[in-house]
């Protein structure tokens, strides 16, 4: 009974909403709303970097556990597979795994505007994150030649971009508009 009355009231109000007098909202109110939406849809670059960095600190560290190369994990499958691809191939896939996993996870935990920011800025946060990761490896004593460093970075960037696009695509298909 109550539901019927509510539904009736709702329908009456909706008619009023659709056919009632239209009144332009004050300009300053519209301006404030647009400013709010604009800011929210365009998050600050440094915030994206910080969030991606934090995600990478967790996911990147966990990814080291699956390769015994770094002395953190015990699994040899990944290490054996990658090393069988030769030094160059191993380096490229190492970077790809390291950054790819982070960006795949980020694709699901970031807000859509944040992912858009990553995409709109030419995926530069991924490149920056790769460069920072490489610098940290060097700082901790890794001995990497320039060409291999570039190969690692290339693998990291390509996998980062693919991972972002794939996770973004999955979200678009399975969540938005549904």
């Amino acid at each position, binding site marked *: 009974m109550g539901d019927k009355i509510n539904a009736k009231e*709702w329908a009456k*109000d*909706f008619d*009023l*909403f*659709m056919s*009632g*007098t*239209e*009144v*332009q*909202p*004050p300009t300053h*109110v*519209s301006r*404030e*709303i*647009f400013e*709010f*939406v*604009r800011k*929210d*849809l*365009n998050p600050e670059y440094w915030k994206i970097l910080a969030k991606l960095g934090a995600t990478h600190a967790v996911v990147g560290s966990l990814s080291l556990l699956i390769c015994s190369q770094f002395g953190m994990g015990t699994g040899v499958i990944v290490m054996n597979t990658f090393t069988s691809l030769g030094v160059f191939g191993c380096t490229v896939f190492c970077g790809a795994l390291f950054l790819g996993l982070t960006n795949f996870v980020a694709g699901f935990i970031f807000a*859509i*505007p944040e992912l*858009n920011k990553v995409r709109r800025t030419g995926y530069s946060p991924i490149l920056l994150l790769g460069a920072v990761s490489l610098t940290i490896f060097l700082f901790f004593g890794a001995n990497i030649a320039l060409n291999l460093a570039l190969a690692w970075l290339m693998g990291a960037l390509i996998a980062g971009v693919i991972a972002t696009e794939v996770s973004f695509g999955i979200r*678009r298909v399975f*969540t*938005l*508009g*549904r």
Partner: protein
Amino acid sequence: MKETLGSSPDPSDEELMLLYQTGQERAFAILYQRYSSRVYGFLRKRLSDQNSIEDVFQAVFVKLHRSREQFNTSFTFAPWLFTIARTVALDWHKKQVVETKYVPRSEVELEALESPTSGTAELGLIDLSVLPRTQKSAVEMRYMKDMSFDDIARRLDTTPDNVRQLVSRGLKQLRSLFAKAGG
């Protein structure tokens, strides 16, 4: 004038919502252009003062923005937006009712209680028998007979500091009774 966005020259509201969900600011701008005056007109009929209309209007679009990803594009946009507008307006009304109900009892009446000169009439409406005997006497003498703490202390054969405590505890108890009674 026809707006162009995405692949369609004249996208439907639902297509615009999908574009808005993917972060297209322009899609929001078109939806706002299509519906803002309708929402504003609706709120003007429901609310009385200008500030409230503006606040609720902003809240409607903030809520629309925050829930945009929950919109199912297989449904129609207008009823969804209307439901948001109606809910926000109703919530605002409820909040106003709670505030006007709460303020006089807890603040105005108790302020009156704490002021010996203006609290006499209100105090007469309160049943002081709920208080322990000494507290009741102290409160009565302070607020109904307008006596000083020193005079009350002499009458009750105690110190003025103790009287202050008795009055304070009495008021505290009355406050909690007000709160329990739904104030």
